[in-house]
């Protein structure tokens, strides 16, 4: 989802902006090197295409639907540098021309939706290819995994940004569970669509697909960065569940210096639901509450947009 103005504070937004600019600069240099003069034409076309592909809606149950983000797909087909550039271009177009995503949050949106998805998607598919070989079937399966994980990690990235600089005092735990669980569902859809698009491409024009062309491992640093990103975000994801009590979340919150910390779990407890003695279960319940809220939002939002078309 595109983050609007006002959700994330200035230092975090600015840092995200700097990271995005740096990554785009590196990606541009790399793409220029391997595509040469063709770079501009191909990048322009593919960005336009990804923009249009993001209009593919798929149902994620309960009458709602998600849409393709395309980060993993872009890097699988175009390679890490070009893929990241194309999705970033789409985000820029959406921010400046279609009022989608706050301009103060542009750095964050580019980071979450193109850089994180791109790097992690690339890391997953690259590793998968090394482990399971590069036969079509293996690549297709790998693309499903890449698509799914990239979307989930994108939401974790948002939670990290929120933890570091969120301007509202909803508990990180609730944001975390709400975002990650809903994006888990969207991730499955993304993975499925990515896999199917890739399967047809491999059948018909495999010479166009970056991952299936056996190129020299030029950007050895790329999967490495992807690995680091994956590990850090992954650890953040697992850590709350690894710790024996939900206090794990609170310690993480304190580490990030997030002072206002009220849990929806307590909200439920105040209303003395008798079954909730274990606060871990209450967190799950608050998560479900969060997801339901989001599903309602998504439903409303999509209903309103459907009426427009």
């Amino acid at each position: 989802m595109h983050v609007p103005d006002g959700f994330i504070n200035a230092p975090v937004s600015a840092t995200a902006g700097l990271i995005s600019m740096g990554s785009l600069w590196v990606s541009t240099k790399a793409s220029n090197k391997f595509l040469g003069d063709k770079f501009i034409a191909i990048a322009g076309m593919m960005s336009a295409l990804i923009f249009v592909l993001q209009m593919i809606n798929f149902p994620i149950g309960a009458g709602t639907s998600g849409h393709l983000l395309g980060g993993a797909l872009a890097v699988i087909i175009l390679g890490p540098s070009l893929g990241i550039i194309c999705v970033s271009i789409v985000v820029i177009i959406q921010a400046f021309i279609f009022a989608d995503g706050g301009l103060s949050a542009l750095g964050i949106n580019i980071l979450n939706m193109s850089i994180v998805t791109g790097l992690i998607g690339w890391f997953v598919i690259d590793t998968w290819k090394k482990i399971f070989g590069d036969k079509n079937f293996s690549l297709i399966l790998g693309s499903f995994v890449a698509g799914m994980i990239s979307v989930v990690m994108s939401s974790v990235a948002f939670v990290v940004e929120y933890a570091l600089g969120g301007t509202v005092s909803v508990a990180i735990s609730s944001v975390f569970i709400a975002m990650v669980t809903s994006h888990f569902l969207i991730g499955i859809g993304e993975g499925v669509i990515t896999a199917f698009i890739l399967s047809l491409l491999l059948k018909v024009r495999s010479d166009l697909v970056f991952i299936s062309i056996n190129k020299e491992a030029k950007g050895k640093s790329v999967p490495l960065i992807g690995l680091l990103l994956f590990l850090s975000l992954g650890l953040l994801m697992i850590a709350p569940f690894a710790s024996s009590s939900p206090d794990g979340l609170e310690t993480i919150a304190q580490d990030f210096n997030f002072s206002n910390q009220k849990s929806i779990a307590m909200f439920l407890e105040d209303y003395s639901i008798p079954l909730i003695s274990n606060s871990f279960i209450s967190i799950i319940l608050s998560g479900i509450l969060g997801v339901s809220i989001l599903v309602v939002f998504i439903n409303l939002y999509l209903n309103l947009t459907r009426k427009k078309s």
Partner: protein
Amino acid sequence: MSGNHPPTNLNTESYLIDVAPAQKIVSVLVLSLSLAFNDIRNTFTFTMILFCIVCFVYLSIPSIKFLIRRMYVIIPFILFSLFLPFISKSGSVIYLYKNIAIYEDGVFEMSNILFKSVAGVSMAVALSSTTSQLEIIKGLGRLKFPKIFVSILSFALRYISVYISEFQRIRLSMRSRGFKNKGLSDSISLAYAGSAMLIRGFERGEKVYSSMISRGFDGNLFVTKRKWNQSKLLYFLCIVALITNIIGLFL
């Protein structure tokens, strides 16, 4: 964000149409960044900046209805913010009705989100209703956005409509064969349509490149310049916002 974007028709009544896109973009950036990074609790700063924003938006849009129609992108966030007074439990408590309590900090957070996201969208709408898509991109170029990105952006804009009509044609032929997007398997058929388009996209990219080199392209990009007006009012609004920010630091 799925592609149900509003029509981008320019508001010909606004005098801002002839103002340099670069200046408009800078104004939008200065104003939205100022607002986004201030808090409603700093009432003076916030109000001043909000006032500047309202001026800019008022000069750009034809009507409030025009603006509201384009706000659907932030509706989930607006709805979310309405919950905040109830769940952000800090600050003093205000009892609304019997036992239902809202919290002061939550009210401030809600207002922050409401004002900031609405203002942000309004300014983006103001920009896109007084500046054609292409001029926005070129304005970015004048602001030292890398030339290569300006070119890629203008190509992307140029070909988005081509791909949308191709996609629509594919959807039409699918529908005329009885296809309805009901379940996941139907979405998969759309995915196949997507891959057909991807292949064409590549080939088109190569063909456009052939056209470019046929007309002598060798890597050098040119950007054409046009004569634009400068708006003194926009300069004034930006300066007010910046000064307010500085004053706000000391209040």
